[in-house]
């Protein structure tokens, strides 16, 4: 079901992403790098752990996939390769963060998502997987998108 190829971006979505890209190039969020490619619909963003946090000097990669009717609908955001060890980040890269799902608003941007994710990393006090990591990852084996998960959000503090 989720393996079907994504629909192309709508005119509104493409227009909006061009503007976001321009804004990003002029004013990138601190700690992030995005290599501009000709693929507007998938951004790979480099994340650098903030100084004086558990993730200092560590580098991770976010994969941001935009749906046809972005920004009305949230992008899918996951960590690729080796996701950071964090109580809200699963070993398959899925992130438990309300703004990526139920609390998404078209008022947000890739940049504001990145800032929220970095803040989530920076406030962590332990490097550990979520307690239900194994069960969750097993359930996602058929390539399920995190947007199909019905999330039960952990507390806001971490």
């Amino acid at each position: 079901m989720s393996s079907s190829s994504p629909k192309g971006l709508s005119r509104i979505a493409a227009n909006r992403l061009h503007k976001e890209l321009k804004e990003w190039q002029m004013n990138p969020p601190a700690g992030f790098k995005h290599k501009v490619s000709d693929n507007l619909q998938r951004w790979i963003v480099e994340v650098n752990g903030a100084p004086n946090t558990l993730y200092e000097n560590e580098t991770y990669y976010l994969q941001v996939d935009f749906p046809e009717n972005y920004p009305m609908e949230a992008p899918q955001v996951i960590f690729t390769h080796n996701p950071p060890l964090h109580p809200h980040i699963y070993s398959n890269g899925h992130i438990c963060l309300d703004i990526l799902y139920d609390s998404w608003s078209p008022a947000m941007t890739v940049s504001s998502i990145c800032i929220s994710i970095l803040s989530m990393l920076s406030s962590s006090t332990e490097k550990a997987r979520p307690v239900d990591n194994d069960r969750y990852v097993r359930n996602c084996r058929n390539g399920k998108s995190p947007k199909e998960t019905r999330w039960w959000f952990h507390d806001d503090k971490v």
Partner: protein
Amino acid sequence: MDTMPDLGDRPRDDEIMAQHYAIRAEEAEKMSFIGDKEPLSSLAAEYESGNAIFKKKIEKLGETYGALRRTRGDGNCFFRAFMFSYLENLLETRNEAEAGRVKDSVDKCKQSLLDLGHSEFTFEDFLASFTDQLDGVQDGSLSADQLVENSRDQSISDSVVMFFRFITSGEIRKRADFFEPFIVGTSGLSVQQFCRSSVEPMGEESDHVHITALSDALGVLIRIVYLDSSNGDGGNNLDVNFHDFIPGQCVQEQPILKSKPSVVLLYRPGHYDILYEK
């Protein structure tokens, strides 16, 4: 086996809720964003074999109001109803001065959003969806039929709803001291949290905080007529309560408009439809 025999295949609570939401979403999608104008009797028919208080109140409602227009119950109904009702009124009264006045309000809202730190590109397309309609009223290119069509077009309607969500959130945050007691009192959330979780995402329902903020932001008087099962003094004298959200009532800088409400909405718990005076 860890399933209790007497429960059989009973679904878990979260599965029941998921199904409930799925059914509600499915039902909602059968209805267009904005329905056709219907006589008030269609509302009475809905309660024919139901609550006696509702029936009496609808009878009372019929003394002042003659028709209604239903909206889709998808959590955005207040904003969609406001969009249609306001623009329809503007069209019918050919009130170009009001269209100009509200455009000035839109400009002020835009400045507030910029002052609050929003990049213009995040809201300019949504803003244009609304001002396009106002332009249409001013230059006469927007017909009543076209307004219905635009209001049923997902892209246009969602865009305008999102613009209203932006300026509602902007007004609340700009006047956080004023709104804070209402927000903390009813939701326990901070102003920022409330805007983030209950105003800015699509599909989040509106209450008196949203209505006050939108009315103030655009300077538009909104009347909400409440249809619920409360029976006032015991049932003999059932009045239908209404509340006027008067823009500027709480803001010094705006002149108080003493005019008839241009937007009249019928509120039933959890839902807003559009009402028409006789």
